[in-house]
């Protein structure tokens, strides 16, 4: 899932600025599961803003609504009227949700209420950790299902640097060394020979380095032949 964190109320207040009618839009997918921007959080942020702006002597009209997925325009159509009626939209979706609203409502000012952090999973109650960097050329088949791009601090492809100690990365004892994890897993599965081959320089073109990415599936497009 996409994991995000809420911005501070102070930052959100400064992003809202002079707007009087504010619509807080939550998202029912990833950010609901990571407790950053679902219906519950949207209601809390809206109430906090109402209270805070009232205390500041300029109570704003803050309402909230949550859609199933902010990153698909059809779900945004359901709340088009509310969006048009607001001076400003505070999106509690990930960065994609914010941009989906901006693209779909070209005349509406939209600001982010979250910092989109990474793609990861909950490792325990209240803890999320990064797992994928969306490099566009998956190497997990070589590394026993543990990603060195997302999980090694240097994204090394040929094994651990000298900073691996006691299972953790030298940059932070809370970060497991990805290559220790890979080594242990390949060792347990009898596949250490995979670590003897030299991996060539990675083609980063499929990652962000090749410019903004886009996937076109002609088999799925509607009316593609007319274009």
């Amino acid at each position: 899932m996409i994991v995000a964190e809420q911005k501070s109320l102070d930052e959100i207040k400064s992003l809202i600025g002079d707007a009087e009618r504010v619509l807080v839009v939550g998202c029912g997918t990833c950010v609901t599961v990571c407790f950053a921007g679902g219906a519950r959080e949207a209601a809390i942020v809206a109430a906090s803003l109402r209270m805070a702006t009232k205390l500041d002597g300029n109570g704003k009209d803050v309402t909230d609504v949550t859609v199933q997925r902010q990153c698909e325009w059809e779900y945004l159509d359901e709340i088009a009227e509310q969006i048009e009626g607001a001076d400003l939209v505070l999106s509690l979706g990930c960065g994609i949700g914010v941009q989906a609203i901006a693209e779909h409502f070209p005349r509406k000012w939209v600001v982010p209420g979250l910092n989109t952090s990474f793609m990861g999973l909950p490792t325990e109650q209240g803890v999320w950790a990064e797992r994928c960097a969306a490099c566009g050329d998956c190497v997990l088949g070589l590394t026993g299902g543990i990603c060195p791009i997302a999980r090694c601090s240097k994204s090394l492809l040929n094994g651990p640097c000298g900073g691996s100690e006691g299972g953790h990365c030298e940059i932070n004892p809370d970060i497991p060394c990805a290559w220790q994890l890979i080594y242990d897993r390949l060792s347990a599965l009898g596949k250490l020979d995979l670590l003897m081959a030299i991996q060539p320089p990675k083609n980063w073109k499929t990652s962000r380095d090749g410019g903004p990415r886009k996937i076109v599936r002609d088999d799925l497009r509607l009316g593609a032949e007319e274009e």
Partner: protein
Amino acid sequence: MAESQASTGNSYLAGSNLERLLRRGHFAVTGELGPPQSADGTVIRQKAALLKGCCDAVNITDNQTAIVRMSSIGAGTIVVQEGLEPIIQMTCRDRNRLAIQADLLGAYALGMRNVLCLSGDHQSFGNHPTAKNVFDIDSIQLVHMVAGMRDKRIFECGEEFKGQEPRFFVGAAAAPFADPVAYRPYRLAKKIKAGANFIQTQLIYDIDAFGVFMEKVRTLGLHEQTYILAGVGPLKSPGMARYMKNNVPGLLVPDALIDRMVQAGAAWDKPQDELTKEDKRARSAAWKDEGIKICIELVQQIRQIEGVAGVHIMAIEWEEAVRPIADGAGLLPRPVIDEPVA
């Protein structure tokens, strides 16, 4: 010898002083010269003067510990002018494959002949922790790229050189005691397979543990495919020894050595506030003497280990220590090879 060496017969790969001495079977001595955090070339000249005559070549660090310093190639140029041979350290942290290759072309044109390929300390340790890192390629891919520029006369993309190719003696690092320890000899094997002509190890204080590592290296025949230079360095104080033991990954410092350092300063064993400035100076001198003495012993023990081709003396910000260590270990004067470079 490594594949690339074998394929060129008796002729030198790069013709550096370091390569020629190693090829002739001399026990090599390399040192380390850290460029200043300034644009002052005088510092380099002073350090070069201290190292000249006691090292066959000196590593010029590349933004070591991710702290901005004069570039290794800039400082290396001054070192060449001073008549000392540099080993340019090149990390993958700050440059992508374009910048690395471009810089190496320049380094070769400026007279540099040795490169040490490193992944590089993470920027979070340095003085610009908010910087974006690069890590386009890793250290093994870097070794392969630099060897390929020399042996296949190609850029990383596969395009052939139309003019002079850079011919470097290619080095890499090894951390024998970093985790996972069992994998370390195999990682060394990968570096050699990628084209590493020489290896410099992390600091060795635990001779027994290093002996175990070298035994595995010999079993794999790696010592016959590359030149392994063992890293050594003088301890400055018991505090430094304990810090390295407890805080630096991949460093083993036996308690016996820490005890020796403590004993060296035992005459001044009283509360800090009762020590005069002179006391502290004398204690520091006693520690340093013991540190140099220990380092000499380590070099002598390392020299007995089969498969070790030299030592890499790392006296960080203490370049004065290199001469007494090399001298004490019977490594001076350094051999001079008087022959034209092909």
